[in-house]
């Protein structure tokens, strides 16, 4: 039971971790707002379903698109101007941290201050593992996580746009010589990350309620997953998320429920200091 919940939560961290890795690999920006897209996806879907009375399927799609749109807006209004002013990297990192911090109160004011839940995608679908029933929704979360990983890997490998985004990550100057506009490429990858975050939100909210302030938790744990797996490897970030989720679930269950966050942060500091490129990332010099 713990394992299943752990992997499910891990899948959400994995999707967020993948968002960090995608944006970092393509633009070199560590983007803290990814966690907020999960909340936007979840609560956006809730609002469309509950307030605007959209059919469930349409509401999910609406929630995902909302998250993608906010991601695109953040890129255009904040990151591009900072790029053009050639701001130092820590200013861009700070702007994403503040961006993440600003979306939470905005969601509370504009969508809903309380925690909300969504009905499971397939009602009544529960699983019976080791003596306890768990919502089938967790299965969807895990399945979707793997599907998105496969989809993103395929997109990066097979499509021309995917190759251009990888080229941008490899060298911004050379990619400009190949007709790729870095600001546009960054915008595209940001929107894709927003959509992935939104999907993660729409998936997890039926299983466990979502609340505006959780955006930062997802942001931080997703960042831990990406750092654990290695920022420059998308699959590594995904794996890091699964490890984190299961690890946290086990600590919660068998050790102390309230120290899991502290342990994750201590683990994160250790990883960044000892092996800044994570377990799976390329070990170039971090200094």
């Amino acid at each position, binding site marked *: 039971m713990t394992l299943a919940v752990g992997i499910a939560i891990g899948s959400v961290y994995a999707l967020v971790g993948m968002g960090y890795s995608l944006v*970092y690999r393509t633009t070199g920006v*560590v983007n803290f707002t990814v966690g907020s897209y999960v909340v936007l996806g979840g609560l956006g879907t809730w609002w469309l379903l509950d307030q605007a009375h959209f059919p469930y399927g349409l509401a999910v799609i609406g929630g995902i698109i909302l998250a993608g749109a906010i991601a695109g807006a953040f890129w255009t209004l*904040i990151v591009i*101007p*900072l790029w*053009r*002013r*050639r*701001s130092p*990297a*820590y*200013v861009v*990192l*700070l*702007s994403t*941290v*503040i*961006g*993440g*911090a*600003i979306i939470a*109160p*905005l969601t*509370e*004011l504009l969508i809903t201050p309380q925690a909300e839940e969504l009905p499971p995608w397939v009602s009544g679908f529960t699983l019976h593992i080791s003596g306890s029933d768990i919502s089938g929704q967790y299965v969807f979360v895990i399945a979707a996580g793997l599907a998105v990983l496969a989809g993103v890997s395929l997109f990066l490998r097979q499509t021309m746009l995917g190759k251009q985004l990888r080229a941008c990550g490899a060298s911004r100057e050379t990619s400009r010589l190949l007709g790729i506009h870095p600001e546009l490429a960054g915008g595209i990858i940001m929107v894709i990350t927003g959509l992935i975050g939104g999907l993660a939100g729409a998936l997890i909210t039926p299983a466990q309620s979502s609340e505006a302030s959780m955006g*930062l938790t997802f942001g*931080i744990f997703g*960042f*831990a997953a990406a*750092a654990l797996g290695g*920022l420059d490897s998308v699959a590594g970030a995904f794996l890091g998320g699964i490890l984190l989720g299961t690890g946290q679930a086990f600590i919660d269950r068998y050790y102390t429920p*309230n*120290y899991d*966050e*502290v342990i994750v*942060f*201590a683990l*994160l*500091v250790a990883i*960044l*200091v000892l092996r*800044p490129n994570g377990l799976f990332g390329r070990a170039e010099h*971090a*200094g």
Partner: protein
Amino acid sequence: MSRAWRARDGLVVAAAAVAVVMTELSGSSYWIYSLCLVGIYAVVAIGFNIALGLAGQVSFAQVAFMAVGGYATALLTTKAHADPWLALLAGTALGAALSFVLNLPFLRLSGHYLGMATLALALGVQSFAENASSITGGALGVFGVPSLTLGSFSLAVHSRFYVVVWTACALCLTVYYLTAKSHLGRAWRAIAARPDVSASLGINVSRARILALVLAGTMAALSGGLWALLLNYVAPDYFGLAMIGNIFFMVIAGGMGSLAGPLVGAAFVVLVPQEMSSLGQWQGVVLLAMLLGVLVLWPTGLLGDPRAAGSITALLPARLRAMPTRTGKAGS
């Protein structure tokens, strides 16, 4: 910084001193309390101005040392019944020691990795304070922190505590001024600009960086301790992401590497939200939005060196931006 900048800097400090004295004399409890808070915020900002403004160390972790100072002072007085003065000094010393030990491993990191590691440290300390309820009182925090006394003369009255706060602030400003003017300050600025050139001139880069970070950590712990004594209470959510944003805002908006910048930044961060209380819940959003605006539109801040950042014309699309350079004025 050129002579004109230093003159303006000195002028603002003098003006601030006059304002502080006038408020004390005015006796208005609202303003005295507000300026107590401004002084406490300024102390941590002055420390961070040494680390970021002079030595170029991008550390998100100052708030962690603020929490260390605050909780140490609170717990020593409530649990160990220590004298508040000793508790404050002990908290500050603990902050200094921890900022040495915890920053050492970070010296090898730079850029994103330094930012991420220090951010993880800060949020880890806050999470510990929130969850280790047996030690830190958990989310509710620590109540009943006594006020300072001078013999039998209680300093609970804000107008008296005011003097302690602003004396501490003046002390920190003096430390900033003396070190910035000295060869230590020059070494910091050289390392911030070119660590490789500084090393080739024989400067021990790591030792200079850790000195700046310890000074910043000490002042952050002092600020946390004073805050606990002012509110007679300390809680984990004071030391979260919002405070991280405030600390950066005070140093960047005030003007990195300037003497009076942190004072102006602190006044802004404390007084402006109070005036916006009519906005209610929108208050937090507006303040964070202002910080984003400063980062994009005015990165060198009020008193900073304007040539430090690219020119604002860079924000225009390429076609417009090219116009001025054609007429001979060099683009950014």
